[in-house]
């Protein structure tokens, strides 16, 4: 009997040495004549434990992490690589973690019992970690293409109604009702329509799109096919960041496999409906994550934001009706169709239905992907899941929703996280990214950085964004060097107001979020008395 070992192959695991661990493991197997079957799975997103090595036992997978190449020898010595008489055979679900650690200090017990994972409610990430990303049989045996099979038997209007009933809203950040967008594109008449998947995940602190593309790529393909089938689009475009070389290669491979297996092409699953996906590499522009700038970029132009209306659903790519959806939005779709709208809709709160894959990042002890229903609090995420800062110091600032998101003041850390609640306090959930800073951070520096980032990434179309961002840097520099602080602070507020009101897209209109929240909640970092 061979020993089955799992080791992830996504970018985050590779970044912390998964390939080196794999090489050492194979060397160990050769030296000790172990009949070893090494499976490169996806990462569960327990990123502080990566590289996370799992050993298959009759009762389930046993996890070890974070494993470095140097740990392979001691793992071997502990006997866990034995197929007969391994101490892992005796582990039961009720064992205390201290007993488990006696087997080997890195042993974490059954993977599915790790509290970080156990406490989640995974819908969109249900397969991630369990399957080999590029094995179609793995995908199919874990509910893959069930949503598509269902969709193929439904009229488009019924699919749209199902998505409407589920309450799904765009997960890219804008949170627009997906069903309404689809309905608009369905009702638009045109000889050619398009599905565009926005995989230009540029927000710092976010990586859920990357994780899907690297760890469960067929789910995205399935979502895109269903979207195409629904609105009557035969061509899809997938726009992936150039900063994501692993994700790009993963999608390239998955699209190729899906074509060969008849899931993409002239007749989807033999039903006579055509759908194809063109994979496009972005080129390092943050603003191209804005849907109209993305469309310009796909057309081979500078990523300049377009004025809306017309909405892309009516006049989008090449002037044709186009649905632009984020990766996570599209991956929710097969799940909703296979399990039913109600199964999704019953999760969450208010008008924020279903789950959100939060991403816990920055100075955090246990960073990773946490998919839970809307309604969890920031305190639960950062402290219960995350364990506070990695540095062990006090948490000073938490930014939610990417670089255009607000620093959430402590008084709101217990607020149920929904689109509505966050909107009410002038914040945004965005794409679900959470970045934690400890008490060594200078918030005026982060405010300056927000302006600097806007200056770097502004497409230049709107003056308040293009020039205001540079002016903002200058004003914050004045404040930081104690020059004319009161007047400069007033000027900064005024400038933020202008940017907010006078910019077409979120780049200019939301850059004031981090700037003003830093100024309002951390006044002493700007040379002012605490409020």
């Amino acid at each position: 009997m061979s020993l089955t070992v799992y080791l992830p192959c996504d970018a985050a695991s590779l970044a912390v040495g998964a390939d080196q661990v794999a090489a050492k493991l194979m060397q160990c197997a050769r030296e000790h004549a172990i009949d070893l079957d090494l499976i490169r799975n996806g990462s569960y997103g327990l990123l502080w434990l990566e590289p996370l090595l799992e050993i298959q036992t009759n009762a389930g997978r046993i996890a070890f992490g974070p494993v470095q190449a140097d740990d392979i020898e001691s793992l071997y010595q502990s006997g866990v690589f034995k197929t007969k008489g391994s101490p892992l055979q005796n582990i039961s679900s009720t064992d205390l973690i201290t007993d488990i650690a006696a087997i080997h200090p890195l042993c974490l017990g059954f993977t599915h019992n790790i509290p970080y994972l156990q406490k989640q409610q995974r819908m969109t990430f249900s397969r991630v970690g369990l399957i080999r990303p590029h094995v179609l049989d793995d995908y199919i045996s874990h509910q893959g293409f069930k949503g598509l099979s269902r969709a193929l038997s439904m009229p488009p209007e019924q699919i749209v109604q199902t998505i409407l009933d589920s309450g799904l809203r765009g997960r890219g950040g804008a949170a627009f009702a997906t069903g309404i967008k689809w309905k608009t594109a369905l009702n638009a008449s045109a000889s050619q329509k398009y599905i565009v998947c926005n995989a230009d995940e540029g927000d710092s602190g976010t990586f859920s799109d990357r994780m899907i593309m690297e760890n469960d790529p067929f789910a995205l393909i399935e979502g895109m096919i269903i979207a195409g089938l629904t609105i009557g689009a035969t061509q899809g475009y997938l726009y992936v960041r150039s900063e994501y070389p692993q994700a790009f290669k993963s999608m390239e491979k998955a699209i190729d496999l899906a074509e060969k297996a008849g899931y993409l092409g002239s007749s989807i699953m033999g039903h006579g409906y055509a759908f194809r996906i063109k994979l496009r590499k972005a080129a390092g522009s943050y603003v191209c994550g804005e849907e109209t700038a993305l469309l310009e970029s796909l057309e081979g132009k500078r990523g300049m934001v377009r004025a809306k209306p017309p909405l892309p659903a009516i006049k989008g790519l090449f002037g044709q009706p186009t649905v632009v959806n984020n990766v996570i939005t599209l991956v929710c779709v097969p799940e909703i169709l296979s399990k039913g709208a109600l199964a999704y809709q019953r999760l969450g709160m208010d008008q924020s239905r279903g789950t959100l894959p939060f991403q816990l990042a920055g100075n955090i002890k246990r960073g990773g992907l946490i998919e839970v229903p809307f309604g969890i609090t920031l305190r639960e995420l950062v402290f219960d899941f995350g364990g506070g800062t990695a540095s062990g110091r006090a948490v000073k600032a938490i930014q939610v929703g990417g670089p255009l998101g607000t620093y959430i003041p402590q008084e709101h850390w217990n607020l149920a996280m929904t689109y509505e609640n966050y909107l009410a306090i002038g914040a945004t959930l965005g794409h679900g990214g959470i970045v934690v800073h400890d008490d060594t951070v200078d918030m005026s520096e982060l405010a300056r950085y927000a302006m600097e980032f806007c200056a770097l990434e502004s497409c230049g179309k709107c003056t308040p964004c293009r020039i205001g961002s540079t002016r903002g840097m200058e004003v914050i520099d004045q404040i930081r060097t104690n020059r004319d602080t009161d007047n400069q602070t007033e000027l900064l507020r005024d400038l933020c107001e202008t940017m907010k009101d006078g910019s077409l897209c979120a780049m200019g209109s939301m850059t004031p979020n981090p700037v003003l929240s830093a100024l309002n909640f951390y006044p002493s970092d700007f040379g002012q008395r605490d409020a």
Partner: protein
Amino acid sequence: MMKNAADPLHKILSAYDPRQENLLPILHAVQDALGYIPPDSVQVIAHALSISHAEVHGVVTFYHHFRTHPTARHHLQVCRAEACRSMGAENLYEHAVRLCGNQANPTGSVTVQATYCLGLCATSPAVLLDDTPYGRVTPDALDTILDQVRGEK
């Protein structure tokens, strides 16, 4: 230069339909083959796609990814966005520039470039050396990473 660049450029152009929507894929292919977008390739690309020189120039200069001058053989992208900042990315970036020079003025076989998010935000600070990702990178770890490529000409 043109003589060297002409062959791969025409080969690349012949692989794509001559439509503007293929401009970014073409520019990617040119940069992958030549290391940058040579200024005199802009006119050739524009002509092939039946668009203006200004239009191609505008696209090349809009996107951070495209380079208009030759650079060192290896590219080190150091993330300077929030999640990496919270774990010391600014020190790491300065360290990288001290070792390799800045983007405009590389001193050896590695060009350093600031980038804004590699999606490795829970294992920060992060860098990408060519296409290889590294997380939890300390300045010492960066020395080791760069040792693999710094000796090369």
